[in-house]
């Protein structure tokens, strides 16, 4: 039974600890906004680059230390052209070399440890599968993470 004295975020932290242990990527529980000093992530969504693909997205073999991030990376591989039209709300859009949410899933992008990057990709994937347009997905992501 839940303790009536448990705090909301203590509850979530406890859930995460149970659900993800003994995964070594416990660091993933931190939001990028916190790790980056809470920068606001306002700004226009980028225009998807013509011909963009998922060739630079980290493959599953490179995510052994972050198994909980696998579904989000699968989403990035499935719909790179959608993710390339989304500005990430976690704060990493301010980083040098960043173009779009897709950038978070390439190279040493922070999606492997950021709940917000992962959540945006999974939400985009879910909405795209239900037939939503890029504009509708952007609106939903702004509502959820903006």
């Amino acid at each position, binding site marked *: 039974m*839940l303790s009536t004295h*448990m705090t*909301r975020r203590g509850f*979530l932290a406890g859930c995460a600890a149970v659900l993800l242990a003994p995964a070594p990527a416990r660091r993933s529980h931190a939001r990028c906004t916190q790790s980056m000093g809470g920068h606001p992530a306002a700004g226009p969504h980028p225009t998807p680059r013509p011909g963009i693909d998922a060739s630079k997205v980290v493959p599953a073999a490179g995510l052994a230390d972050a198994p909980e991030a696998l579904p989000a990376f699968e989403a990035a591989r499935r719909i790179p052209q959608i993710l390339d039209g989304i500005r990430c709300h976690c704060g990493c859009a301010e980083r040098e070399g960043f173009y779009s949410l897709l950038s978070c899933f390439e190279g040493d992008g922070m999606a492997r440890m950021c*709940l917000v990057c992962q959540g*945006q990709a*999974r939400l985009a994937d879910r909405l795209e599968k239900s037939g939503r347009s890029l504009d509708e997905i952007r609106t*939903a992501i702004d509502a*959820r993470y903006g």
Partner: protein
Amino acid sequence: MRPAAFASLVLLLAAAPAGAQIRASERARVSQVVDGTTITIDFARPRVRGRPVIFGRAVHWGEVWTPGANMATTLETDRDVVLDGHAVPKGKYSVWMVVDSASRWTMVLDSVWQQYHEERPPARAGQIRWPIAPASGGPTETLTWSFPDVTATGGTIRMAWADRVVQLPFRVTPTYPVTTARAEAAPILGRYAVTWLRQDGSVEPTWWPGQTVEVTYEDGALLARWAPKLWGPDPRTYLIRRSPTWYMLGFLERGEVADVFTEWVFEFDVAGGAARGFEVRGERDLLWGRGVRVP
């Protein structure tokens, strides 16, 4: 000057900290963040220094006085606020008080913020003015601006010096307004049976078993009454609109929002003018729970 003496002088000057200077009224700055709004007051701090009477003598009745010294006290807010019931657009203002009598003053915020204390501004466009009533207090030796209390939606700015205290309640522009239009709220209203899920999709039996939530519309906002309650002393939460069908929880303390729980979003499935239920999605878009409309 002999070279040795000159070198000593240079060393002495170099040893003094840059900008170090004793002032009768030292400069100070206080700042407070409330729900993303930062209010900063920059002021000098005169001391009573044994003077038996400040207001009515050192500060004359009728004087336009900056509650500070030297350069006028400034107030800066990076978002619009409501100060003592008066709308103050974001910006930087010099702060003045017209000290009419012991109990009747006028607060003045002047958009020309960089002014010396003797450049007393006349009433003019660009000012926000309203009457205030200083209270007896103190004695306060050194003029002090402070934020003695802070809530989730505002607080109080306090100025105290000698035997007078001015308290100015303020409210910030909420990041997450609780209001929802009645037309958008209507499909959401009703009672739902809630099931909480493990991350593998199976039912989590220990989280609020048998829970229901009743959603009502009160004073322009959606209120959810949870049984059994979630966290905290109040069984109610606000549903805070993020889109026409997506809501976050706003937890209440003493009747006002004290925490917006952005980790979860409630996605209502609206069809035919009424929600059939909702999903609870976490930050990683994982499914945490479901609600199904019940009679």
